[in-house]
């Protein structure tokens, strides 16, 4: 976390403390391998909110965050590009209710207290789920960090929460999942964690960006080829048990590099990716919720996406 101007000797990466591809690459030493002459430093953020602030102030060159925070970054004209989808959210993010609350389905949530970290992918997923059930203004939403969700859950202050792992497993002993992000994804409201790269860095060191993508792609490949080893690396890096890591990773989808820049996800120069379309949808929805001040156009989203050279 040095000063604002990025220098050639250091690559600063903002990370989330979850068992994702960045964690695996770190553990495996892929970064050192790819950047032998540069110092790679990692700055942990609690959420994409802080990561965005860091990108804005030039404190990091890359940052991982939920795609909703990516929408915020675009809306706020932060000079960044969408580089990579780290993972697609699935059962690792879900809406969980207390077992004894008598809530059987989403409709039963009417008048209940639901907690979620605002501005997160979970928040977005929850809002979509509620909107679909016509409950948008019929529940009490509470903005809480994941740790406070656990505390509030234990005390019985909340009836439900939309949150992610590892928080989720702490609630699962007396909770039941109503819906998870893979369900929403099927309806066309996918969410995922993405990595943004600062435009300045991209301009100065395009080849480093390329290498960065390849590092992450390598982990995605590793997962496909040797899942247990990937889990072990992720667990070690984030300091959790392999079982926990397995549970968390199982709920996510790591896309191959080829798929990333295909029409299913980020798209390419000619065709718009499906994920981008859904991100645009999210932007429009967030604007309708007044959480962002305007809805960026699909064109803006298209320009937002990084395109790898050649390959």
């Amino acid at each position, binding site marked *: 976390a040095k000063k604002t101007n990025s220098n050639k000797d250091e690559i600063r990466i903002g990370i989330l403390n979850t068992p994702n591809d960045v964690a695996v690459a770190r553990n495996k030493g892929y970064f050192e391998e790819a950047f032998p002459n540069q110092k790679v430093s990692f700055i942990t953020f609690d959420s994409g909110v802080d990561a965005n*602030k860091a990108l*804005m102030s030039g404190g990091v060159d890359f940052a991982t965050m939920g795609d909703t925070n990516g929408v*915020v970054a675009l809306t706020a004209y932060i000079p960044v590009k969408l580089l990579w989808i780290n993972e697609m959210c699935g059962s690792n993010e879900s809406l969980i209710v207390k077992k004894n609350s008598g809530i059987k389905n989403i409709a039963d949530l009417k008048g209940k207290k639901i907690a979620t970290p605002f501005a997160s992918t979970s928040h977005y997923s929850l809002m979509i789920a509620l909107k679909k059930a016509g409950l948008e203004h019929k529940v009490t939403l*509470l903005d*809480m960090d994941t740790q406070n969700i656990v*505390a509030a859950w234990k005390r019985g202050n909340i009836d439900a929460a939309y949150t992610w792992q590892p928080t989720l497993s702490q609630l699962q002993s007396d909770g039941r999942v109503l819906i998870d992000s893979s369900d929403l994804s099927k309806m066309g409201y996918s969410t995922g964690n993405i990595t943004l790269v600062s435009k300045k860095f991209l301009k100065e060191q395009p080849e480093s960006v390329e290498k960065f993508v390849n590092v992450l792609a390598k982990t995605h490949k590793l997962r496909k080829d040797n899942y247990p080893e990937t889990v072990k690396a992720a667990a070690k890096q984030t300091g959790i048990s392999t079982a926990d890591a397995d549970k968390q990773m199982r709920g996510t989808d790591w896309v191959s590099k080829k798929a990333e820049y295909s029409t299913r996800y980020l798209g390419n120069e000619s065709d718009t990716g499906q994920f981008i379309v859904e991100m645009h949808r999210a932007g429009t929805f967030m604007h309708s919720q*007044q959480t962002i*001040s305007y809805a960026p156009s699909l064109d803006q989203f298209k320009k937002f996406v990084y395109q790898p050279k050649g390959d």
Partner: protein
Amino acid sequence: MKKKKSLLITTGVWVCLLAIWFAVTNLKLVSPILFPSPQEVWTTFTSILVHGYNGISFWQHLGITLFRLFSALILAILTAVPLGLASGMSKTIHSLVDSLIQFYRPIPPLAYYTILILWLGIGEGSKIVLLYLAAFAPIYISCVEGVHHLNQDYVLSAKSLGAGKWSIFKWVIFPGSLPDVFTGIRTAMGVSFSTLVAAEIVASTSGIGWMVIDASKYLKSSVMFMGIFILGGLGLLLDWLLQLLEHEWIFWKGKN
């Protein structure tokens, strides 16, 4: 005449700053996220005044914030003033409670907020208690000081005029320490006020402090700036009101 001049300078400073702000932002010398323009902040303000924020009207946000602040302050006054005066008057009570208060006083509120939430839940309770704890210590301490600084002749006179313990408390010690008590209340309000945003960070969806925090999540700078201005103005206003009250009630202050 001198007063007029200094008022002129002060106005000048603000006008200048506003002008620079206006110029710098409108010439697009800085990113609007780093520094939104005054028009933008103003538009945001009027729009929030009309449409509210997050589905709740501006006045409700303000109301809930003030409710939390005043509940905490009133609670603090009701408990800290008696305890502080008692601690000032009785050595025994002082040795019972003073060290506890001196110990908790310097702890940053955010450090124990999580524990408060664990104990009291996420509702208004923990928020108000957080603000209450912030307000309690300054009031308590200035009450103790108020009694200690009291002119001893006041008490001695009262005794040799035949006043009993209760009369002395009611007519001498209490009014005599009021100036200090009031200073304590003003400090307490300042401290509570600066804890306000921390209190509204967790499990809130209303309040001016929450609004600023929420806006910062979406990097809505104009809302952040607006919130900051509102909080600054509100802080000034509340302190000014307390000063008015002080002037009215403690008319003898500084006149002896």
